[in-house]
């Protein structure tokens, strides 16, 4: 029986609490940017959580997951460009389009395994990327500015940053909840069983291909929702949303936070994006302390620190940050038991 009060759980609870009270804090200090940044983090955490569903639990490493962000985002952006700003049209379209695309990709890709799966999902993502590049009417390579956010007939005003942020947070919690429900259902057990031994699951009589495809489509759809949110958040869509490096970022978030852990992707998204934003400032501050003068140039070398940090996490923290917290707990328990 694992105790409820573990370091991991406490950190997660603290993180969730921070997410909930953040707008109050930013309003108090009058800095809207922290809210903008965290809205982005929450949206990408939704995408990372959906990736974790197929990658962490289903063993399907998609190196093209950003494509669904793009499909969802472009559904919103293209409709907005054509003058259809109703969210009741845009969002279902985004979900349907990304689900359809996931169905197409999954149906063709799930026959392959391992690295071949990684690469075929990349191939489809690259194709849709270049389709977006070729969409001249919608900005092509340069992207498209969305001049009006989705309208929900007075139900919720997305132009209100705080409301929009809370909408994203609620959707993130819903995504995590859905993942939890899926993972612990019979369906989820088949998916996880198929990850460790697909042949045995099929021998038992489960049509694993259909199960895995369904899971793949659900993940694609959730990620499409993240895309619709991102398009509204940035008021801008561009092929860069689905560049392969973005897919790589999502994988990094999941692995860094902890694969196959419910809150891992959230932790990973927060860690990676907050580090990206603050590392230059931290380096600048440390440089200031050490040398006693402004060292603006040094701030640009923050990746020199981030790179080895990622490598170290891989080498010494199996299971990412969530796993690290877990093992800290084990270590604590052991030491407290020996002193008791």
């Amino acid at each position, binding site marked *: 029986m694992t105790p409820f009060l573990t370091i991991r759980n406490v950190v997660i609870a603290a993180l969730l609490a921070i997410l909930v009270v953040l707008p109050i804090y930013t309003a108090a200090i009058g800095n809207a940017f922290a809210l903008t940044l965290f809205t982005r983090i929450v949206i990408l955490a939704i995408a990372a959580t959906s990736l974790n569903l197929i990658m962490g639990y289903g063993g399907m490493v998609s190196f093209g997951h950003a494509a669904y962000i793009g499909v969802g985002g472009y559904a919103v952006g293209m409709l907005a460009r054509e003058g259809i700003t109703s969210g009741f049209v845009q969002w279902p379209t985004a979900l349907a389009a990304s689900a359809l695309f996931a169905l197409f990709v999954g149906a063709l890709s799930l026959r392959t395994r391992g690295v*071949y799966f990684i*690469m075929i999902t990349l191939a489809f993502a690259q194709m849709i990327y270049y389709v977006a590049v070729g969409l001249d009417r919608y900005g092509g390579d340069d992207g498209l500015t969305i001049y009006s956010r989705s309208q929900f007939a007075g139900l919720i005003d997305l132009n209100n940053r705080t409301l929009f942020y809370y909408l994203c947070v609620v959707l993130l919690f819903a995504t995590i909840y859905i993942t939890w429900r899926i993972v612990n259902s019979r369906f989820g057990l088949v998916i996880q069983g198929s990850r460790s031994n697909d042949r045995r699951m099929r021998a038992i009589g489960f049509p694993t291909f259909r199960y895995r495809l369904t899971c793949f489509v659900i993940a694609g759809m959730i990620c499409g929702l993240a895309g619709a949110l991102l398009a509204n958040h940035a008021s801008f869509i561009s092929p860069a949303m689905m560049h392969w490096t973005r897919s790589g970022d999502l994988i990094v978030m999941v692995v860094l936070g902890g694969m196959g852990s419910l809150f891992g992707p959230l932790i990973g998204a927060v860690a990676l994006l907050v580090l990206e934003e603050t590392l230059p400032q931290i380096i600048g501050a440390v440089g200031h302390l050490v040398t006693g003068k402004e060292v603006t140039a040094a701030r640009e070398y923050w990746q020199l620190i981030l790179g080895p940090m990622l490598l170290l996490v891989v080498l010494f923290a199996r299971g990412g940050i969530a796993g690290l917290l877990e093992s800290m707990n084990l270590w604590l328990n052991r030491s407290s038991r020996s002193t008791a």
Partner: protein
Amino acid sequence: MLLFVEQCLNGLQLGLLLFLLAAGLTLVFGIMDLVNLAHGSLYMVGAYFAATFAALTGSFVLGALLALGATLLVGMAVEVIALRRLYGRDHLDHVLGTFGLILFFNELVRLIWGPAGLTLSLPPWLNTPLQLLPGLYYPTYRFAIILVTFAVAAFLYVLVMRTRVGMLIRAGASNREMVGALGINIKLLFTLVFGLGAALAGLAGLMQAPILTVQIGMGENILILAFVVIIIGGIGSIRGAFIAAIFVGLIDVVGRAFLVDLLLLVVSQQAASTAGPALSSMLIYIVMAVVLVLRPEGLFPVHGK
């Protein structure tokens, strides 16, 4: 017609260059089961070394040779210090870890050589066009790349198919545990293979240097192409990598060269000039997807794993 021949030569040159990258990648992947995203960084490092040594010695050829050795050493050092610890781990750990290495190498290079990039000038005898056939001119240097790469491919063939080391490499690709059980110093073999892969990547980088400028991040986009090549060819197969590389090179160049004109036959000028570049960029990914749908383990799968 001459244009078509010329474009095929362009495609061949790109393909052979991709082969150099893909050969190392597929060896490391096939034998150590390591997904090395930092392979492109070695390509970059090779180019930087070549530009530096060529400037120091004043000789392009001497600079290239020194750079080749230096890249080999860097590759082996990276293997011993960092990557060795990743063997046997999950592929995703490799992806994250070597992704970290890319960031590190990019910034390190920026720190050492500055952000501006370098140029590597060719000696005059390489910097002129060569008349291959009446009316068919081709850059001498690009032709030299084709010849050098063919020689390297032949060397690899002999090394892998005709020598004891090659036998171990082949055995390692199909059954890693067995080679270890035979009492071979597997650690040393792995370090050597990684160094060889690094040297090949460095060779590709230094040969591209006089065509493209030497700059940070130059290895990242070509790395994706190299991955496409080894996937189409089948992981671990040098022969597959060779054929797939030439195939991908030809498709890419010929697509860029003729696709817009082909599209013009069916659609308007406006549509062709916007859809053409997008479609030609997409072409190799379509090919890869089709290959994988039909043959989920690439064209030349290495059996026994």
